[in-house]
């Protein structure tokens, strides 16, 4: 019935090329609290367990302002500078 083309309904990200490190540059774990109710409690426990096992874990745990919104650019920039393995806390 129609011989014209289809219009894509899905907008695609237009970010430029970026580099992904698949191996941490230093053996350290960096923790990010995503703002969910139990996230910080889980991360502090995680921190303690990892340290008991001899893993180096950064003391400071940075937090998103609220779980329902993405990480802002400032925090994202700081996290991008980290050279260790980044773990994000989850849980309601």
């Amino acid at each position, binding site marked *: 019935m129609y011989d014209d083309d289809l219009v894509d309904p899905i*907008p695609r*990200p237009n970010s430029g090329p970026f580099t992904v490190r698949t191996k941490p540059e230093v053996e350290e774990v960096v923790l990010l609290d995503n703002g969910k109710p*139990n996230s910080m409690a889980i991360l502090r426990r995680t921190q303690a367990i990892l340290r008991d096992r001899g893993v180096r874990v950064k003391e400071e745990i940075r937090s998103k302002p609220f779980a329902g919104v993405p990480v802002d650019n400032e925090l994202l920039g700081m996290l991008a500078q980290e050279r260790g393995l980044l773990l994000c806390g989850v849980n309601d």
Partner: protein
Amino acid sequence: MGWSDGLPVVPPYRSLVDGMLDSMGWSADEVVGGIEAQRIEVGAAHLAAAAVMAGCRPEYGRLLRPLSELLVDPEFNLSGVEVTTGGDAVLVVVSGPVVDQLGFEHQANAVGGANCRANATIGRFAQMVRLFCGRGGGVLPTHGTMGHPGRLSFCVAEHPATQWPPFHTQTGIREDASAVSIMAAEGPNSVNNHYAESAEQILDTIADCLGHAGATNYYWHFGTSVVVIGPAHAETIAWSYTRDDARHFLFDRTRRATDDLARLGRMPAVPREKSRVVAGTMRSPFDHESQIHLLESGAPGGRFSAVIPGWVGNYNVLSKVVEAA
């Protein structure tokens, strides 16, 4: 390609999309909004394609335009609505003269399953935009734990003639306008009260539903809710309450003991400061009565209302005027 909500769609042929763009008042290369954190720009053509796929008629364009602008408003946090564990949908509310002009069903099964083209397709359009634009171009998975049927279509039209001023006056839009409003929403809960003889009995029943032990907002307490008041309930309540009085009553009565919520496991062991959990006090899922929005809709006959809880990550009901044809 991920171009479906699970149901068959109308193929977005360019000729159909061009017609929809024309009715929405946009050119194909216009950018309507974006999701900055995901480097996504939402173009008019994306939105018009979704409208075609949802089965919208071109004459809905004057409503689809402000609805589109609301959906991509950063305050609505479209991506958050899509990916949250809450399994939320976009509730679309239509109010004012446009309800009759575009042929919305506002009586039988008005909250869902009205089997009416305007309700079904405009509600579906909003969910498709959520689905197509909220996942970072198909990169992000959704995490909805339960979801609900409104994630396929969720549009409620208010009666053109209401006991109180129209729904949109609660969001600052003038009374004689037509408007479209959106809220990120959980599924609706039915509230049955057939034998009440007073407004207070009905409102207390609604408050019990707004504040049931499992209400998501108890911890964060800054979400909103829409209460759809059926015509029989609205008539009884309006005998003795203005809308603002009814909102105040509901806010006042929607409470549970913090200690009881903690006993049930509704409060984390170490609450965050901003959630303001205080042992020994009564707790509301709302900070203020303005978070409770009343909407008049539904069929005469039964004595039902419905509570539609909002998502905690989206703080307001957002509205825009629908321009006259």
